[in-house]
């Protein structure tokens, strides 16, 4: 028979075991993609239409707006400049390609036109803009920023290649990254 002390040790052990399992699951979500080296870390998290709908409906966006956003491919992106120098981010130098060719990213300009055509309130247009990854930013030492990139939906796997200039005058060694086998979520 187990005494009270042994039961207590068993319970504490079980709690530790469960918390390690939980940590491992959180650290390795199956749909997350990551590129990391000494200079940069990029994380990409494709979102499902349900996640997108839940987020924007929760902010009071109209059904029409949410339906439009559910049709496309959202990728929540985080960038971390791990260096002590400036890292120049510019979406112009990000390319998404499938084996059949380029995927053209939806720009801020595209969405602005769409929302204006649909008569979307300025507050919702503003919130939407702030959820997007900045088009360009001079990432300072150890700075993190993030936001969404939006692509037309594709069922095919695709590859991201991106290039970052570095240094105060952009003359430093550029950083090039490649992440393969990305997938939109459905």
């Amino acid at each position: 028979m187990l005494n009270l002390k042994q039961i207590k040790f068993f319970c504490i052990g079980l709690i530790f075991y469960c918390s390690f399992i939980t940590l491992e699951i959180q650290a390795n979500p199956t749909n997350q993609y990551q590129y990391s080296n000494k200079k940069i870390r990029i994380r990409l998290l494709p979102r499902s239409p349900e996640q997108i709908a839940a987020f924007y409906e929760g902010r009071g966006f109209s059904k029409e707006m949410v339906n439009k956003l559910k049709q496309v491919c959202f990728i929540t992106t985080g960038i971390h400049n791990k260096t002590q120098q400036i890292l120049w981010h510019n979406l112009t130098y990000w390319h998404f390609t499938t084996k059949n060719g380029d995927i053209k990213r939806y720009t801020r300009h595209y969405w602005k036109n769409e929302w204006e055509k649909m008569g979307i309130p300025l507050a919702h247009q503003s919130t939407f803009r702030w959820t997007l990854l900045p088009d360009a930013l001079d990432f300072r030492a150890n700075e993190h920023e993030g936001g969404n990139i939006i692509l037309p939906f594709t069922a095919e796997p695709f590859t991201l290649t991106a290039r970052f200039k570095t240094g105060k005058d952009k003359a430093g060694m550029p950083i090039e990254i490649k992440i393969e086998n990305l997938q939109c979520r459905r």
Partner: protein
Amino acid sequence: MPTLTGRVFFISCLLVFSAPVFALNNAPAVPVGILTLKPYPSPVVALKDIDGQHFNLKETKGHWVFVHFWASWCGPCRKEMPAIQSMWNKLQKEGLKIALINTSEDEDTIFEFLGVYAPNIRALMDTDGRITDQWRPRGLPATYLVAPNGEVRYQALGGREWGSPTYLNFLRQLLKQQ
């Protein structure tokens, strides 16, 4: 071996000659994650708070102002807000002013959020996001420090531990300059 008198003389000279350097260079030590900007006139902040009272940044001239942009849906904003409340509890009485600007959300959302995270700070409502756009933040959250002469002097990168001694000391050094 230098004598004791020699050492005292050397240290005295060092103090005497370095004093003007310290006097000239009275800029505070800037903590990690704070950018020192080339000063520029602050963009407009003329907004109503959640109770319908007007706030105009122009009327805070003569004080350092902590200008902060946030939204309830932004994870780093949620994480940072208690630190801002903690900082505000300490520095409000020391002369700091604050403009806590919500970007594009409604009164109910702001009320519910701040009730939990920062119940003692007056919330300003940038209902259509136009004021936020004029400040051109790098992202949300965003914090700027505006000097008593109305110039933007510092910008924080992302969320900061404003309630920690490092940031409190930095802000206190700024307040001593006013």
